[in-house]
């Protein structure tokens, strides 16, 4: 076993070990024990992944692809568990471990008085394990293992407070909607397997170009490119996991879970798995323009329309949740124009600033004694200066104000879509462009409502307001730093490096699709890019969003109510989230239950059981009851039957 192998084993297994120890002995291990064991496990994993990333990305160690063991085989097929260590996976390992470590630390403060303290730490470490397996897989089987594994822990954590009905509803919904996505995903894997005979990335990528020309018949008399079918099926999985419309409905509900996991799972890591997967599969997607178009349109639509929903939310976590939906839309849209690097870049910066926003929101929620309604907050900057500054940095990054991290990644996405020629790109461009205004508006609306404006909380809460403890604000600060400056340092190497940079050769782009390469010509360093943007439309829209938020919530605080009244219909549609939830509830949830009842009561109970099975029993009983009458036991009955019989025989013979 060589060194890299040992390291990757340690990286994935330490969080698992921590989780197992705490999970199995959660009664015996104290709260302190629980957070020490798991946090140290993840910390080791983080340090090792930094080392690994350094080796692969900077020290020039070549991409390392190996199989750990044979999972199983059948006929001529074989499935392996194995790891692919390249630039993309190792940088993802770092990001995942970094956010996970901070969330572990933060949770020590946030979960302090919770009954399920040990259980919580066991879960988040288990989540880290599954996410690391997903990211480092070298085949679809292991990818799927991690994919469903993170889904399981997400389910467990959304329903963490299982006494709360809304939490149970949210967790069930999340699992089932994700399963709808996975339904497509497993079919995608099956299709890959069918045409490649293997689920290892390397063999799949090697064969991809030839699949582009093959066709298959999905519906009779139609011919689909095999690759298009595969890519779209896989993308359905990504739509579930990365909460793309119309499978986005579970993510807002996931906010029922504790806030640290909203940051870790439902902002920084798990929900970006779909984006990671598509980027990883770039050698497939590149050969299917149809699939890319679908990806682009789904992503861009989500980017704008889920963002708009964030405007009408009053729950601070829900604002951030809808914002996550919208930002995921940006990432996915980037993938659709083959700007995979931009999507991954936004994934990184988003991991930082969105985890920051969630954790800052959590810090506010602790101070407010678990009140999440922004209408009952206001002027918190007076009481929570650290949280205030951190939230502001996160908001600026999210709103893509230069030179904060979010600016570099989002600007690249918008420019890439602007320059793309793929069908749907012009529609997508307007979506993402308008989205910048919306994003800036909703996040600064939240910012002003929480930290500025007059104090609207009750006396009791106000008396208890203070800055959170260091375990809570330290992660905020540690996340605020990359949220502010990561863009400056990473933009060149991720997006515009002629030699591949941070992502190296992990991503494959056909030359004619490479929009980022054409943008690279105009790139002259991060600071000039920031300066140039002052004259660009997206930047003005973002600033405009902040300005309008300031106008409406600080300058003319009575204006929002006026607009709500004026546009009450639109407001209602937005409050109803375009009706997706109601539709699902009526058609899928209640509809399937009703169908199930009909099938059961009519099909099984009535027709099969009552009529056929018991019916045949009754029929035989009826026959025997009647036949029994022949055996009456009276001599004259038998004598009479004999005479009739003799007569009939006689008649027959004599005829």
């Amino acid at each position, binding site marked *: 076993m060589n060194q890299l192998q040992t390291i990757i084993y340690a990286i994935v297994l330490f969080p698992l070990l921590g989780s197992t120890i705490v999970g199995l002995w959660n009664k015996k291990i104290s709260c302190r024990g629980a957070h020490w064991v798991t946090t140290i496990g993840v910390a080791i994993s983080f340090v090792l992944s930094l080392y690994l990333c350094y080796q692969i990305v900077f020290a020039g160690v070549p991409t390392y692809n190996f199989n750990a*063991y044979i999972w199983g085989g059948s006929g001529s097929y074989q499935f392996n568990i194995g790891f692919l260590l390249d630039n993309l996976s190792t940088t993802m390992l770092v990001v995942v471990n970094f956010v996970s470590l901070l969330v572990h630390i933060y949770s020590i403060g946030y979960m302090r008085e919770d009954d399920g303290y040990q259980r919580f730490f066991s879960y988040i470490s288990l989540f880290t394990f599954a996410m690391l397996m997903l990211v480092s897989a070298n085949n679809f089987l292991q990818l799927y293992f991690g994919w469903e594994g993170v889904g399981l822990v997400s389910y467990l954590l959304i329903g963490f407070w299982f006494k709360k009905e809304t939490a149970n509803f949210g967790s069930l919904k999340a699992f089932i909607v994700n399963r709808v996505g996975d339904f497509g995903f497993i079919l995608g894997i099956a299709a890959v397997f069918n045409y490649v005979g293997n689920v290892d990335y390397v063999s799949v990528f090697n064969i991809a170009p030839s699949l582009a020309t093959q066709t298959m018949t999905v519906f009779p008399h139609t011919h689909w490119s095999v690759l298009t079918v595969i890519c779209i099926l896989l993308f359905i999985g990504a739509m579930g996991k990365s909460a793309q419309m119309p499978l986005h409905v579970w993510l807002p509900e996931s906010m029922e879970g504790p806030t640290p996991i909203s940051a870790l799972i439902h902002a920084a890591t798990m929900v970006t798995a779909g984006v990671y997967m598509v980027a990883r599969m770039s050698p497939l997607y590149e050969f299917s323009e149809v699939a890319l178009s679908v990806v682009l349109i789904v992503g861009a639509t989500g980017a704008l329309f889920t963002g708009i929903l964030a405007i009408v939310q009053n729950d601070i976590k829900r604002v951030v949740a809808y914002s996550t939906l919208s930002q995921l839309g940006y990432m996915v849209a980037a993938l659709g124009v083959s700007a995979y690097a931009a999507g991954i870049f936004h994934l990184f910066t988003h991991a930082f600033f969105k985890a920051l926003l969630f954790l800052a929101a959590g810090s506010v929620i602790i101070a407010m004694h678990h009140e999440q309604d922004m209408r009952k907050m206001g002027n918190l900057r007076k009481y929570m200066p650290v949280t205030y500054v951190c939230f502001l940095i996160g908001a600026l990054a999210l709103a893509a104000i230069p030179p904060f991290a979010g600016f570099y990644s989002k600007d690249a996405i918008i420019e890439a879509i602007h320059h793309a020629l793929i069908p749907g790109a012009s529609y997508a461009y307007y979506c993402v462009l308008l989205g910048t205004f919306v994003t800036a508006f909703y996040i600064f609306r939240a910012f002003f409502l929480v930290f500025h404006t007059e104090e609207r909380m009750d006396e009791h809460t106000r008396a208890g307001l203070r800055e959170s403890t260091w375990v809570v604000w330290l992660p905020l600060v540690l996340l605020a730093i990359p949220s502010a400056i990561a863009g400056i340092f990473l933009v060149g190497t991720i997006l515009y490096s002629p030699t591949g940079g941070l992502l190296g050769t992990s991503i494959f782009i056909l030359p004619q699709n490479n929009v980022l390469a054409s943008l690279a010509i105009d790139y002259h360093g991060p600071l000039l890019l920031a300066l140039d943007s002052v004259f660009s439309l997206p930047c003005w829209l973002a600033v405009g969003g902040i300005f309008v938020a300031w106008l409406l919530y600080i300058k003319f605080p009575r204006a929002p109510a006026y607009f709500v009244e004026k546009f009450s219909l639109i407001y209602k549609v937005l409050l109803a989230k375009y009706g997706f939830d109601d539709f699902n509830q009526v058609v899928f949830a209640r509809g399937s239950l009703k169908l199930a009842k009909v099938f059961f009561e009519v099909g099984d109970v009535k027709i099969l059981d009552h009529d056929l099975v018991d019916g045949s029993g009754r029929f035989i009983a009826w026959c025997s009851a009647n036949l029994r009458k022949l055996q009456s036991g009276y001599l004259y009955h038998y004598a009479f039957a004999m005479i009739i019989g003799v007569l009939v025989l006689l008649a027959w013979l004599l005829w």
Partner: protein
Amino acid sequence: MLNNLFNHYILSVLIWLPMFGGALALASGGDQHPNRARLIALIVSIISLALCVPLYLGFDNNSGLMQFQQHAIWIRAYDIHYSLGVDGISLPLIMLTTFTTLLVIMAAWHHIHIRVSQYMAAFLVMQGMMVGTFASLDSILFYAFWEGMLIPMYLSIGIWGSTNRSYASIKFFLYTFLGSALMLIALLYLHEQSNSFNISDFYPLKLTMKQQVWIFLAFLLAFAVKLPMWPVHTWLPDAHTEAPAGGSVVLAALMLKMGAYGFLRFSLPITPDASALLDHLMIALSLIAIVYIGLVAIAQTDMKKLIAYSSIAHMGFVALGCFMVFDIVANSHNLKDAYMSLEGAMVQMISHAFSSGAMFLGVGVLVYRLHTRLIKDFGGIATSMPYCAAFFMLFAMSNVGLPGTSGFVGEFMIILSAIQGSFWVAVLASTTLILSAVYTLYMYKRVFFGVITDPRIAKLHDINYMEKIVFVLLAIVIIFFGVYPAPLLNMMHATIGNVLHWSLQSKL
């Protein structure tokens, strides 16, 4: 010498030791000394399981032939032999049988108070019968064991069952007996043709299509009832619901497997052309089991009934795996491609035994404490019984087919195989991902989550040490085979090759 002796008689020991143990348990006295019967049963089942270790180690994975054979004449006049042997499809099932019986006996330790010695005896005898069924090489011996095991099962439902037990036990008996009667006729007819009751002598037999179709249908009724397949499945929900926990476990984990075992041992190799002719019928029935029964499971209000319907849906996957082979080979012209479908079906059989058995035991734990099976009577169990809830979550996840649990392996292999035969079959089969999640987790939510409304639930004690041992054992196998199914698969490659050899060769 000793080795030779062992190789010859190990299977007989596995059959007759539990039967003898059962007799001993019966003789240990009535309910005055329940612990004696428990101890006898425990020791016997542990010895049986321990005997499986040398059986496994001595088994040659590379051979598709019957191993550990034993031959004796049973009834000379009719040419009936007492011949035993195992190959790669019966060995895992025999090991599964001994493992499951041990769990059932441990689970009954505290739960069964009336007629303990009879209860233990019934399950030991059942174990012997089932091992006998899987190990028989002679078709009449097979039939004898096949029918014989109905008796202890019938008794276990009828005596230790719940309120509606008499209806359920009679329904169970008549249903399965009716199917098997036709199988006997088919076996007699095959003897007529081949002058032998040896199952392997049926394989090379030339049969016309008409003969094959009739034989296939006669077998089908027997196996479809056992499996069970739609529309002859309705005995199962009743039998499962009324049976004691141990009975439900044995039914789900073992008896249902007899049907699929029959497909692999009889239907496919003996009537390959009829199987190929009727494979679309079988695929359709399997898909109905997966989709329709999956939906029916959602509507259940009784936990055991829900798991019973879930069993039917899971067994639909087994039948699908068995009968997709013809389409797969027709598309790819490569016999090697068909392995995964059949092996997936085998794995599904075994993993379903773990997950459904575990869920039935879990429900048994709850029913024992609260004397109700209705989902609405529960709620908030996770608060008062956290360990039980945690284990049950793992079992539920295996039922849902989560990767990393054994429940995933079979479904994954079958879906990946099915798409090689037909895209739309794979699509319909994959709906299980959604349906199983809905019915399993919807039940889990209503039973384990939420606030406690019933004061009796608040006072519940969590699982005791015996229950914990059972759950831990199940958890270990579920995770082990989920993470590393290779040992299980390696056991069956050669035999599956053998089955495929006969199944894909025309007999006309």
